[in-house]
């Protein structure tokens, strides 16, 4: 039984924790929050330089070949640190989609640039409200040109390339690779509950695209499953950070002559947050294992990890504000940054009801087997 990270992975975590503690400071996150920049470019470049963007990319494409479990370690730290960079879009979505379904030429051209941070990628599946559903896809590729409107697209306003879910002339769902800098692409920044992570509405008007080989919807679902595990680690990192903040505050803050952490109302609330966070962590670990070995259990593990982590992050973030009381609801305290991010992460790959349905669908498949 070895259901924990390896020694090297623990070292990677420590290194990431140190780097992000130093760099992903409240001050730098708030630069993005306040709209000074759409992301922290300097942090992005340093992260690229450390090889994190290619953690799970094979060495032949310039990656570090640490495998997906290594990437999970980084994801937890990035979530904990609220890192204001397009990591999840470029790494979990675009890079993974190319790894899974890109042609050799596409991989050869794009992966090294994504790994180096020279290109930022994203994936555009949503077209307005609703969870992933092929029936909702109206964007269309015709004669090699893409037309349609996708929103919200994470980091859509700053990405260089997007993998766009669309229909081809025969109505099949395909993944189309679009370059975003050129004519015919109209990005529009969206105001969201968490301004520290850029979101955009992308309108395509006859933009030349390359269609990725294979069944587009199947690839999308595989990408979402992988990303669900990785985002679950971000959520677990965030939940743990909120719990740490709340515990520290409850020890320091006094009311009625005693630390507020000595009141059972606070103690039991934080015990519940701890329980939710540990359950989420354990579910995420199983997801990491399934992702790491490419197990057949991945769909179930990914959906379970996402449902559990979404619940834990939301609970931890809202009860962290509550534990802080009035001061926790001021702009200057960071509590709201975690609260905003917790909700954003819980929505970004589709919301909990959709993933709950996937849990049960996977259970049904497993039991039928």
């Amino acid at each position: 039984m070895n259901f924990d990270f390896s020694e090297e992975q623990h070292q990677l975590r420590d290194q990431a924790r140190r780097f992000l503690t130093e760099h992903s400071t409240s001050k730098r996150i708030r630069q993005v929050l306040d709209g000074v920049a759409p992301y922290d470019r300097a942090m992005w470049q340093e992260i690229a330089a450390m090889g994190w963007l290619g953690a799970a990319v094979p060495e032949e494409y310039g990656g570090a070949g640490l495998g997906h479990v290594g990437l999970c370690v980084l994801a937890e730290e990035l979530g904990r640190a609220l890192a204001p960079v397009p990591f999840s879009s470029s790494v979990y979505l675009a890079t993974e989609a190319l790894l899974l379904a890109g042609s050799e030429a596409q991989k050869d051209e794009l992966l090294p640039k994504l790994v180096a941070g020279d290109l930022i990628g994203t994936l555009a599946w949503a077209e307005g409200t609703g969870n992933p559903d092929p029936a909702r896809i109206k964007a269309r590729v015709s004669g090699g040109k893409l037309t349609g409107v996708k929103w919200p697209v994470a980091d859509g306003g700053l990405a260089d390339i997007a993998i766009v879910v669309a229909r081809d002339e025969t109505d099949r769902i395909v993944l189309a690779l679009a370059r975003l800098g050129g004519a015919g692409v109209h990005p529009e920044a969206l105001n969201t509950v968490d301004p520290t992570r850029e979101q955009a509405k992308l309108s395509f008007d006859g933009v030349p695209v390359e269609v990725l080989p294979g069944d587009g919807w199947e690839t999308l679902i595989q990408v979402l499953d992988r990303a669900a595990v990785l985002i679950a680690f971000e959520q677990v990192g965030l939940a743990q950070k909120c719990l740490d903040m709340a515990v520290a505050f409850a020890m320091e803050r006094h009311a009625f002559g005693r630390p507020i952490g000595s009141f059972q109302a606070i103690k039991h609330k934080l015990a519940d947050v701890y329980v939710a966070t540990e359950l989420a962590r354990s579910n995420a670990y199983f997801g990491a294992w399934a992702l790491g070995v490419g197990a057949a259990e991945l769909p179930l593990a990914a959906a379970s990890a996402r449902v559990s982590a979404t619940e834990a992050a939301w609970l931890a973030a809202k009860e962290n504000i509550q534990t802080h009381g009035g001061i926790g609801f001021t702009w200057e305290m960071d509590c709201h940054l975690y609260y905003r991010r917790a909700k954003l992460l819980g929505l970004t790959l589709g919301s909990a009801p959709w993933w709950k349905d996937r849990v049960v669908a996977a259970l049904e498949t497993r039991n039928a087997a």
Partner: protein
Amino acid sequence: MDFEDTPQEAAFRAEVRTFLAANAEPKKRGVPGRARHVGAEELARAKRFQAAKHDAGLVGLTWPKEWGGRELTQIFQVIYNQEEEAYAVPRGVFEIGLGMCIPTMMAYATPEQLRRYVPKALHGEEVWCQLFSEPAGGSDVAAVRTRAEKNGDTWTINGQKIWTSGAQFSDFGIIVVRSNPDVPKHMGLSFFFLDMKSPGIEIRPIKQASGASHFNEVFFTDVKVPDSQRLGAVGQGWRVALTTLMNERLAIGDVPRPDTEDLLELARAVELDGEPAINNVSVREKIADMHVRSQGLKYTRFRTMTALSRGQTPGPESSIGKLVNAAKLQEIASFGLDLLGSAGMVMDKDLSPMQAMFQEALLSSPASRIAGGTDEILRNIVAERVLGLPGDIRVDKDIPFNRLPSGKR
């Protein structure tokens, strides 16, 4: 059981309707809540409306006739508030002054002071605010650190208050301060009213986590207050403060939005699995759960009103309203976003269904579980004052205030 007014109540309701129809604009549908940002224009409008209301005899309904009141039971105030709910009336400017400050003045100020201050407050010429909360206090309202030292007939105040509504446009304020830190917490407090334009008072708006600014910090640097503006004896400030807190406005009808009806509307507007979300069993169950809470509160208010109508005083059971509403608001907001899938994060009045009402509520709802008594304090109140369970163990009863452990925050 019926929902009818008594003849006297019906006559009063008609009077209120006539007044409002002549002096206020009906609310527009779909505009959530009341604006809480009060600019110069809003303040002027509020003052005009207050004057008209006063001239119509609708201010201070439960107060002694001596002060222009009508000595009615509280149900009449509830009826007034109910009717006013339908109108876009400038509110929030006089509530604290007339609901908390002036009643405290009436209990403790001299007849001369009352003649000076009460009429102008009633008529809306002068605005009052309340200065109790402090950064280190929070739920522990008596943990006041703002110091007042006496020199001759003058007190000098130094310290900081927080969460002060309306400080920026108030003319006067009531304040509780620590006059003696060498005695236990509740014994070393004194209570004053003061001129908010006094030298040494600095008012800064607080930016809340939602981005809005509804409150202020108020800093006191050597602010002078004459001893004649003391309310109650030196060291008896806590008793005076309790008088103020007892007068908190009866919360009625203030249902936060989005509520069940809004969730129902959202569920009709968006699709899940190719059909309106309202057809989804899970969505239906959530709407039902929220509906029975909303309606349970509504009819709890009706029961309270019945008690008021019979001249009884409502008990601490009315504190369940905020407790239930605050959690419900956060739950409805979060659920609403989930209903929209990844687009739930988008807070754009043009793109988000229902003008981003749910997203705004998501960001503002944490405050409603804290302001005016945290969930935890309200549960304590229910447990102790309604159910009669023992109070928490108090370690701060017999220790001088300046020797209490205080932590770093």
